[in-house]
């Protein structure tokens, strides 16, 4: 009955979709999936490829977990989630190797490492294993797009400051001296820290104004 009432509530779909984008953004609010966030955001192209791969894996794993949720044994559920996620990550990895070999090489081991990305197992556990198919797909889409958005923002800032270009197109004047540190791990940590601080400030401001 609970699932039915959820399915009949159209506002819930919108709320679920938007939650992943801002209120529960996996990177800026939940601080999940930090490994690819720090490792593949030196440029926008690999960040977008990583984001799209995560969206694919999230949607597919949420569909499968949602469909088998009534058959899952509690003590075997994590094993089932990992098996499901690993399958779709392998498919995504093979796809990139076959159709985007340059990106596959740039991302290196970070594509297979999606298997241990906390966002995916978190959504399988928190949403897909408890909700119907439509809500699970919407949740995966919201979280995936939120993750991709965060990665692209971070990568955009780092790419501009480290090369003076974005998407390999020069945007800063020729006299600009690239900040090499921005393409290194230190640049990723500093930019992520500043962005999380900014998001927290905006959220607090929003919360205050909604109270008034």
């Amino acid at each position, binding site marked *: 009955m609970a699932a039915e009432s959820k399915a009949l509530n159209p506002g819930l779909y919108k709320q679920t979709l938007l939650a992943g984008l801002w209120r529960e953004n996996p990177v800026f609010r939940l601080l999940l999936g930090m490994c690819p966030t720090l490792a593949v955001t*030196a440029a926008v192209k690999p960040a977008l490829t990583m984001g799209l791969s995560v969206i694919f894996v999230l949607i597919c794993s949420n569909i499968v977990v949602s469909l*088998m949720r009534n*058959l*899952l*044994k509690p003590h*075997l559920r994590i*094993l*089932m989630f990992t*098996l*499901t996620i*690993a*399958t779709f990550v*392998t*498919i995504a990895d*093979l*796809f990139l*190797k*076959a*159709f985007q*070999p340059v990106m596959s*090489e740039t991302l*290196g081991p970070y594509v297979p490492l999606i298997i241990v990305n906390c966002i995916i197992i978190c959504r399988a556990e928190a949403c897909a294993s408890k909700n119907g198919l439509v809500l699970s797909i919407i949740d995966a889409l919201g979280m995936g797009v939120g993750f991709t958005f965060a990665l692209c923002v971070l990568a955009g800032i780092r790419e501009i400051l*480290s090369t003076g270009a974005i998407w390999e197109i020069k945007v800063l004047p020729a006299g600009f001296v*690239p900040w*090499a540190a921005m*393409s*290194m791990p230190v640049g990723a940590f500093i930019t992520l820290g500043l962005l999380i601080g900014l998001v927290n400030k905006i959220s607090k401001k929003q919360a205050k104004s909604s109270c008034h």
Partner: protein
Amino acid sequence: MLKIKHFIQQSWLLIVSSFCFGLLIAVTNAAWSPRIEQNQKDKLNNLMKTLIADANDFKMVLEAVQIPGRKGRITKTDIYEADDAEGRSIGFAFIASGPGFADKIKLVIAVDGKCEKFFGFDVLSSNETPGFGSKIKEDYYRNQFKGAPAGKLELVRVGKTEKLDSKIVAISGATVSSEAVVKIFNMYIDKVKEKLKAKGLINNGR
């Protein structure tokens, strides 16, 4: 009997899912593996073609040549012969790998038909520090190897980069990566020359 029944009751979903997922991966792999292999071959061919510009065709002449590495570890590599439009051998290329600063560096090294000079190298894969170690891919460093004698190379901190000799000037701020490339060259070149000579391929070269 009861134990088996209990086991099946508990794990049937896992067994069925494993079979289905395994099948899905096998089908996907079967469908895309020819393309993946082709991509790898194309990349290697492109790199070899960049290094030996006059080459018309590459054919494998020596397979799985054993190269003794550090701590007695053996690595294997294939040696390709580059032929010009008239079918004459004009050089050789091979994949060489070794430890870099952050990860393994994989290079494609090319030598001339007589194994006297290096045609140069290109990076097949590396994870060196962006902005520093990654400069091993830049012309400033790579050009020093073009025309250098095909023998043991030496890394120096200062010197003339234009001079084509066995002294390779290190990249400022990336000495470890520069040294790693030179070490890879030194690890492979003698063995490759020895094997090519043993097979009588060097004398055929122009």
